[in-house]
């Protein structure tokens, strides 16, 4: 294990910062495409974004295996997760409760855990680090949590993701859920969200 001084700090107030982070994720998941910004973690372990690290601090623990994509799996990131979250880090993303990937190298969505019809909650929640999120433009989102439609622009994604997302939607009630991250900002797409490319 790395010396203590090499481990990036977690939340200043673990109890209240976890609560605030959870509420932001809950709001994002309940209102797909809505952006929430969390100014709670200033110094995340590279190459993880502040919102990625915050979501993990709030939700990941010894009961939730975490998968980190190869391009993001730095020593600093791994040490941070082991120290603060105490989570097992797995090599097989089909066994992960949470996963972290970059938008450019997001692996095929079908390789994550999709849950099963009797227990659809056992699917992976995938945190995707984008290079930009903006509301009011780009993709058109509809589904539960959205009154009519929301617009969300996601930058940096590899091609083909939204076709795979459509296939993910067909699996309902199974399927993965996405948390999209841009720095300290996040948005979420539960499996019920229909995405139409403009």
């Amino acid at each position, binding site marked *: 294990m790395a010396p203590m001084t090499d481990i990036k700090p977690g939340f200043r107030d673990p*109890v209240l910062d976890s609560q605030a982070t*959870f509420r932001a994720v*809950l709001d994002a998941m309940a209102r797909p495409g809505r952006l929430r910004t969390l100014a709670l973690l200033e110094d995340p372990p590279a190459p993880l974004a502040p919102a990625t690290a915050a979501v993990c601090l709030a939700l990941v623990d010894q009961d939730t295996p975490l998968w980190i994509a190869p391009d993001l799996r730095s020593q600093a990131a791994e040490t941070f997760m082991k120290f603060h979250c105490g989570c097992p880090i797995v090599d097989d993303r089909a066994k992960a409760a949470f996963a972290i990937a970059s938008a450019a190298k997001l692996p095929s969505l079908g390789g994550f855990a999709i849950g099963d019809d009797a227990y659809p909650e056992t699917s992976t929640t995938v945190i995707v680090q984008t290079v930009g999120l903006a509301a009011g433009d780009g993709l058109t989102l509809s589904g*539960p949590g959205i009154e009519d439609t929301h617009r969300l622009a996601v930058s940096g994604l590899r091609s083909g993701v939204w076709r795979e997302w459509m296939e993910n939607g067909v699996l309902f009630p199974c399927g993965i859920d996405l948390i999209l991250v841009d720095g300290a900002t996040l948005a979420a797409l539960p499996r019920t969200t229909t995405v139409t490319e403009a």
Partner: protein
Amino acid sequence: MADVIDHPSRTAAAETRAATGYNFAYLDEQTKRMIRRAILKGVAVPGYQVPFGSREMPLPYGWGTGGIQVTAAVIGPDDTLKVIDQGADDTTNAVNIRSFFAKTAGVATTEKTVEASVIQTRHRIPETPLSEDQILVYQVPIPEPLRWLEPRETETRKMHALEEYGAMHVSLYEDIAKYGRITKSYNYPVKVNGRYVMSPSPIPKFDNPKMDRMPALQLFGAGREKRIYAVPPYTRVKSLDFEDHPFTIETWDQCCALCGAGDSYLDEVVTDDKGGKMYVCSDSDYCEQRREAGHVGDGGDPAYAARNQIPAGDAPAGDEPAGDEPAGDKQ
């Protein structure tokens, strides 16, 4: 535009923790994480019951331990909590839960629906329409809507997985064949987003239409049965019915005796020992807001209202006579 969450003022919360020695909102952090993960998956699969590891709470089952655990996992120092029981803020159950969170989380509490950011409820949905900025937490005694048809959990889970709801429809239709209508007046089953059949908890069916496309997030917690489920905002919630027997809600042919409301759920209140009674809003905050705004009822005496030229409420006259049956059992 992103809503920026500032580091909130946490002095009150920190002082509460120091003074009482409680964990914030009572639960330990690992339990909260588990409940929070279950809530998120519940939101992602609307109407599906997510199992969770319910914790012992310092209140007996039946006091809303499921709802309390959901509230405890959700609530933060910036929230304002309202708790209602059968529509009222002042019952023992509601008062106890409110003071539990005031003590363990240091949160502000209110009896006004519009002031609350989190509303925990047993048996009612407030009459005042809820907004996007609110979360409604239901206390649920029996989360499984199919339980009265099938006692085995493995079987009901399979029925939900396969979307096998034929038996449910058959049993509702048997009701129609026998009584000419679906007699269920509380806990009337709904279908969420066209997929899962869900128990709305023992609210009167009068409240079912309020769940449909509600702007607020709806969360459900069952403590004894260890289930959490959710209805995201603006999600379709349809009460089960049949083309030839569409779903209807209760109506009354009188208005609230105190505030004259013709659009609210009324409770029968006995006024004397000679069988005198009047009907008043079950939602005490709604009734009070109306009275504060100058609305008045007929005091239970239509003749008095006529003499004093008090305008009647705008309720359409019901089709049925008032009768002696409890209001909740009416069509």
